[in-house]
């Protein structure tokens, strides 16, 4: 389904759109307040951008350095070329440890690889332990936002969902009761788990360590209780040095939720005594994106979600309307690189207002990349006949001033003389909810010519 179709469906319930918009604008506003309290914010963004650009330009070196250091620390490192290989590696690790029950903290990479259905098909129970993730998992839905996975759900909906799956009592969506019950439910899962899977926010090349950021402490709970820890990371998660965390952790918390820092920035380096630690490093299309100079910077992304919160389209169409693992503006420049045809409407789901680029903590030129994807999509994927022909016609008319003048005259006459009902009839999508201006008798150019004649 195209983004616009999905967005039209989402917009049938205007009250819900208003609620969704306000919820995300609130987060954007919190981000503004906390970013504006940092004097050197723009310098931090420059640094974040620079470090990421440098890392991506030397990715081979840093990846090998990271692997060497991680192995020295006693961690087992695995490499996966794609999602399939990633899933199989994770499964084989689990099998080797006879692990049947897995707890997982938030990881967009495992979403991207569709790890959960793969493991479930192999008789392994996977429980998402981030509250929002658990909610969408119970609802059998994908996350609609990368930081706030269940932002599209009202607390009353969560109430019903928990009654069905966790046996809670009806509570009118009382958040305290619902989170309390979720906590009890998840504690049980943490205790029973044979293995814990986490994502990786930052992998540090010069130490071989990595950092996982959560607000609920669920990564720590999982990892500290289970005998096996599997951390899954995309190759772009690297940063060269430990000290660079001082840049990224400050940018991440503020950009994501307006917090000065995420509640838990958990540093992992080596397995504790008697436990095992694995890192799976995944490509899955990233080197291909790296090879495209116009789109390389999309790999700077630190998954803060700020571009979603600020995007006036995302706020009014919901994350699911993008039908891709990463929704919103950043998703719209990442996804076409994976499947151009499937995601061909996403770069057009934008007014190119540029708010995403200005809010981005690592200064990805998102709206410029959206523009560039558009140029590629019209050439490489089938386009509606009417769009193609009308663009060609417009191009021709605008190339020749005399033609433009003639077409302009007809258009103005029509707007002035045709009945409104006819002007706003079905083929004119503009006219569904908006009036068109009344066609003036003379164009500016007509007036200018006449004025100059009169003056002579």
């Amino acid at each position: 389904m195209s983004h616009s179709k999905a967005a039209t469906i989402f917009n049938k319930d205007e009250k819900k759109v208003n609620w969704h918009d306000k919820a995300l604008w609130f987060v954007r506003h919190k981000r503004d307040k906390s970013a504006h309290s940092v004097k050197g914010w723009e310098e931090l963004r420059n640094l974040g951008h620079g470090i990421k650009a440098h890392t991506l330009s030397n990715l081979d070196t840093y990846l090998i350095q990271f692997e060497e250091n991680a192995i020295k620390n006693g961690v087992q490192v695995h490499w996966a070329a794609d999602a399939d290989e990633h899933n199989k590696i994770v499964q084989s690790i689990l099998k080797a440890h006879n692990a049947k029950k897995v707890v997982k903290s938030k990881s967009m990479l495992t979403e991207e690889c569709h790890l959960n259905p793969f493991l479930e098909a192999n008789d392994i129970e996977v429980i998402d332990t981030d509250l929002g993730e658990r909610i969408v998992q119970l609802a059998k839905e994908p996350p609609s936002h990368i930081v706030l996975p269940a932002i599209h759900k009202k607390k009353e909906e969560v109430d019903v969902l928990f009654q069905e799956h966790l046996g809670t009592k009806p509570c009118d969506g009382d958040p305290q009761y619902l989170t309390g019950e979720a906590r009890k439910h998840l504690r049980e899962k943490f205790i029973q788990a044979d293995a814990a899977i986490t994502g990786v926010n930052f992998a540090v090349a010069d130490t071989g360590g990595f950092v996982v950021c959560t607000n609920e402490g669920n990564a720590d709970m999982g990892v500290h209780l289970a005998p096996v820890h599997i951390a899954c990371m995309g190759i772009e998660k690297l940063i060269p040095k430990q000290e660079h965390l001082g840049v990224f952790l400050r940018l991440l918390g503020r950009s994501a939720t307006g917090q000065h820092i995420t509640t838990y920035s958990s540093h992992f380096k080596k397995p504790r005594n008697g436990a095992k630690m694995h890192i799976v490093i995944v490509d899955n299309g990233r080197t291909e994106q790296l090879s495209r100079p116009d789109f390389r910077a999309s790999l700077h992304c630190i998954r803060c979600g700020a571009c979603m919160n600020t995007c006036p389209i995302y706020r009014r169409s919901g994350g699911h309307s993008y039908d891709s693992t990463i929704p919103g503006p950043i998703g719209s420049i990442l996804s076409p690189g994976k499947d151009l045809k499937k995601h061909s409407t996403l770069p057009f789901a934008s007014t190119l207002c540029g708010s995403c680029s200005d809010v981005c903590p690592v200064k990805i030129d998102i709206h410029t990349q959206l523009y560039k994807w558009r140029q590629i999509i019209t050439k490489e994927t089938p386009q509606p006949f009417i769009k193609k022909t009308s663009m060609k016609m417009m191009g021709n008319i605008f190339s020749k001033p005399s033609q433009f003048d003639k077409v302009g005259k007809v258009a103005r006459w029509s707007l002035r003389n045709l009945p409104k009902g006819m002007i706003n009839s079905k083929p004119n999508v503009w006219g569904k909810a908006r009036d068109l201006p009344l066609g003036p008798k003379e164009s500016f150019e007509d007036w200018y010519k006449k004025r100059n004649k009169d003056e002579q």
Partner: protein
Amino acid sequence: MKVGLFIPCYINQLYPQVGKATLELLERLNVDVMYPLGQTCCGQPMANSGYEYESVGSCNNFVSNFKDFDYIVTPSGSCAYHVKKHYDIIPQTDDVVKVRENVYELCDFILNVLKVKNVGAKFPYKVGIHKSCHGLRGLRLGSCSEKVTEAYSYIGELLKEVSGTEVIELTRADECCGFGGTFAVTEEAISVKMGKDRIKDHLDNGVEVITATDTSCLMHLEGLVTRNKQPLKILHIAEILNSVN
């Protein structure tokens, strides 16, 4: 100083009054301004729709019209931005480079080239500024709410000097109106919703007149205001700055 006036295609055909106000305003400020005949479009509608290659004719026509002027002034931040940012699809001859360097949005030109703040206008109304995105985040005609920079606004500075005008603060200072060129049609539902939400912000804060540097945003907002019979007037900034009586 020879100034060429660029009147965007839709202003030329549908909003000639905006073109007239711009020309009269510049003449009143003693600018040696001329409107070269045979103008069409900057090429943006095709390019933003992904058909940059269909816009080459427009770009060439634009350059040939304006290559001999010291400055090109236009009542549209969006068109000026398009020339500056996207005219790299045609060969970068001296003429093209010169045109790209010297194209100015109207308020930017008055404030930063003419160095005039008070244009002698009188407009006793409560005015809400719609900060059109391409002007704001493309040409940086003002500070945007995302970046941590000092606050400024060219259109705001000029309006502050207009006699009788009260500039109204909005709840969301610089959210997009949802026009977006062909987006307005291809993503109709969202486009309309965004426009409605912008208008509501202006109404809730007691605005009587919405103004902007771009008639494209205003055409979209006006279309909604007219259809929904809302008590708001929509005027381009040139029309306000040209209100002398």
